[in-house]
């Protein structure tokens, strides 16, 4: 790990271009889409159900005659927005607790890391599934569930890096020179932690998008008629044979969003070191 005294200027390396364009493009579509597409995502038109793509309905209509394109962009705001919020929260909580575990002594360390172990003892989306299921879908249960499942990775990573940094002679020197704990953490520990955090958060974004759409697909995420990519897919599933284009649209949206996050995470992870195994 390099010293944190000099920050290399932020520059965009070549492998980052494609995934950044992909994610940026999707985000732009989702933000601009609702302004461009005139249809209401919840407006039903029972005369024109399961219609193919046309000039009026770009991706056709679903089984209730709702415009797929409108539902896609309105759903995207939720799918992507909630994913970003989940990862943001998980990063903040995880990094803070990880630094606390590394700095605040043995009791805090054991307490925090045991809690992290406990959370990791729930495989995959089980925890998010239980919480969303019990609390009856909606944004908040999903936020809580996915955040609970994600933060331990950030805490472990932050703690591991922080312990390594705190053992460095320049940190010892700062401590002897009388700098406060907060200053030392901010100046010497946080920068290398944050560098790894970006990678882990990007990969976590992909995982969060998948979890949100999986919950939606299972009927345990956002409740209809709220448009959400996973829920759209499960609603269209009975009409798979009649409406392949309508089905392909949300599928492709999820795929591209997760692909963008995965590729970005991989590209970020490549030159330095891979994040620690779960």
């Amino acid at each position, binding site marked *: 790990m390099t010293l944190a005294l000099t920050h290399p200027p932020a520059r965009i390396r070549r492998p980052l271009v494609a995934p950044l364009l992909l994610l940026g493009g999707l985000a732009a579509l989702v933000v601009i889409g609702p302004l461009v597409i005139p249809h209401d995502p919840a407006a039903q038109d029972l005369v024109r159900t399961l219609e193919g793509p046309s000039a009026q309905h770009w991706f056709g209509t679903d089984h209730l005659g709702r415009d797929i394109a409108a539902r896609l962009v309105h759903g995207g705001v939720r799918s992507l927005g909630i994913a970003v919020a989940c990862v943001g929260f998980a990063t903040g909580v995880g990094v803070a607790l990880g630094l606390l575990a590394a700095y605040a002594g043995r009791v805090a360390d054991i307490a925090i*890391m045991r809690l992290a172990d*406990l959370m990791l*003892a729930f495989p995959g989306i089980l925890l998010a599934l239980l919480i969303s*299921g019990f609390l009856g879908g909606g944004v908040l249960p999903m936020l809580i569930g996915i955040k609970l499942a994600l933060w331990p990775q950030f805490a472990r990573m932050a703690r591991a890096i922080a312990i390594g940094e705190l053992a460095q002679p320049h940190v010892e020197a700062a401590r002897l020179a009388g700098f406060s704990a907060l200053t030392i953490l901010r100046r010497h520990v946080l920068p290398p932690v944050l560098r790894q955090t970006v990678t882990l958060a990007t990969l976590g974004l992909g995982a969060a998008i998948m979890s949100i759409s999986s919950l939606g697909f299972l*009927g345990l995420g956002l409740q209809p008629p709220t448009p959400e990519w996973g829920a759209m897919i499960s609603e269209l599933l009975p009409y798979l*044979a009649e409406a392949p284009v309508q089905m392909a649209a949300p599928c492709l949206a*999820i795929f591209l969003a997760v692909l963008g996050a995965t590729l970005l995470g991989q590209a970020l992870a490549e030159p330095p070191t891979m994040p620690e195994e779960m």
Partner: protein
Amino acid sequence: MSAARSSFWPGGAAGTVLRIVASRLVQAVLTALVLASLCFAFVQALPGDAALRIAAARSGDDRVTAESVARVREQEGLDRPLLAQYASWIGRLAQGDLGHSLVSRQPVWRELAEHGRFTLGLGALGWLLSYAIALPLGIACGFRPGGWLDRGTNALAVALASMPSFLVGIGLISLFALTLRWLPPAGFRTGAHMVLPALTLALGLAAFSVRIIRNAVVEVRGAFYMTFARIRGRSAGAAFLHHGVRNAAIPVATFAALQFAYVVDGFVVVETLFNYPGLGDLLVKSLLARDVPMVMGAGMVVGLMYAAVNLLADLVCIGLDPRRLAGRDA
């Protein structure tokens, strides 16, 4: 995490194994306790009358009467104080009594066994299939890193890893059930019904394990002991079989346990997608019906299985790499 506590434990081989078993046991017990407390808390926090909900789930919304609600309230002990309910909840659990499903009124363990059979079959088939795909492909890629097969496999693996399992499943249904009409799209009556769900699981698993296998093979092939074996006059194949396989198997075995987390996501979603009556399907249906004992039972089985799989992986790693017994990390 074991290193931090090593001073509490006897040293040597037996101590290491004991420590691993103990830490996984603690994991299992804590998981069960957290699940039970969570479930209890949620039951209490649910808005509305629990007895009314259960009665409605049993007889249908429109046929609930005041008497049936009162009967449910008495049968399920919903009228006792909170702490007493919690104590009896945990106490019964400690005796291994998971209770009865609120919906079907069957004992929870019987429902779990019934659905578990299906999941076990699907999981085993999916797992085997994933290694049938990933092992030869990963080894082939590892022997020619950077070749066209390696690059193609990598692109495919990244694409597959970017899809939640229902996307993979829908793709397979569209291709094999709707277009080619080779296989049934959903259900569980015949063996043919298992092919698509198992393949969906397998592809999702293989997308990750193929990279791990490939990297393990690349690393082992570049190791000094391989060069030495070649200098001694062994052929590349013989050297790999003799020195490579076991070393390459260590990261692969560790990863196989981590993959269980993916299997959980996988079978919950895959079973719902294919309408396959396994544990995942049971879990989702119970969650939607707020059938708490059933949810707790299913969640517990999944959590305990995860602890067991992790323990198995730990022990397999020791078997493959006895250096870990001496307390030195390999």
